[in-house]
């Protein structure tokens, strides 16, 4: 594998990873605002 290809793959994975993590955090915050307090306690710890 060429170094340039390797760097491109690493960069792509990092960008996708950061975006997916950010999306998951955003989704979690949205859910948290509307979920039932009883459901939250029951589903948590």
């Amino acid at each position, binding site marked *: 594998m060429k170094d340039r290809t390797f760097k491109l793959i690493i960069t792509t994975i990092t960008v996708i990873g950061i975006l997916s*993590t950010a999306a998951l955090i955003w989704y979690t915050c949205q859910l948290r605002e509307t979920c039932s307090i009883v*459901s939250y*306690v029951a589903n948590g710890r």
Partner: protein
Amino acid sequence: MDNGRKVAVILALISIFIGFDAAIYNLFTKRCIDTTSKEMQQYSVELHRYMPFDNNSEAVKVESDLKFTKELPVLDGAAALYPIFSGIVNSVYPEDCIRFDNGGFAPESALHFTNTKGAYKAVVDGDADVIFCARPSESQLKYAEDNGTELEIVDIGREAFVFIVNKENPVDGLAMNQVKDIFSGKIKNWSEVGGENLPVDALSRNEGSGSQTTMDKFMGGTKQKCSPFGAFGRSIGYSFRYYVDNMVGCEGVKKLELDGISPNKEHIADGSYPLASTFCAVYRKDNTNPHVKELIDWVLSEKGQEIIEKAGYIPLG
């Protein structure tokens, strides 16, 4: 770097992101996913479960001498009390008084459901004649005052304000001052109250809801605080006993004893549970509907209190 190491680095990076996202999902996202029905998620109550005049519903009914045929007072109220005011309609009102279209009660229906915040606005604005809720918050009273209306608040039954934890939490009870210290942020770890060495995740509800108004009164002016690390620990929340026991269907929670007293019906009725409180019927003092006071008197009568008991709540006694 040889190709083998490059592939290993790529796979490691992918694994790190997948692992990190999986941890976020399992620690935080999963617990926010509401597994109750769509109707429950939309309304905080399953309206059809307690729909009046429906053979398959659980709406309670008593044989009543009081029957309205016209000039029906429009009823509205809190999710936790919906079984009561649907039971009142089921017992006193004519069968054709309900209009349920497109997933909600039509404006011309005698039965509405807009939850506590909506109901207080509705009774002040004149969209509802009588609402069934916990006592109003300061902002709800101010809204009435700003609109030049005075509310009549009549206690009609007893209920308990309860604190809930996950059933796996080893803590079964707290003292009142411990609860206040938890929600004010003074107690941050469950080990301080006999539990595990885990952060306390003190939850709160939206302003204007019946349970938040009751919690604000309980805290007596002390602000509620939550720890950012609480999400890594065990949660504690609050609601009304009937709602937790009968309406949400969550077996994963348990109600805490307060000062050693469990929030069961007996302790609520005799007043020994420290946070036994009343719930109310509320109407505008200047309401001109001729049946409003008649309805309130009926709710306070033996038959009306029978509705409250049959619906699973505690009568005034």
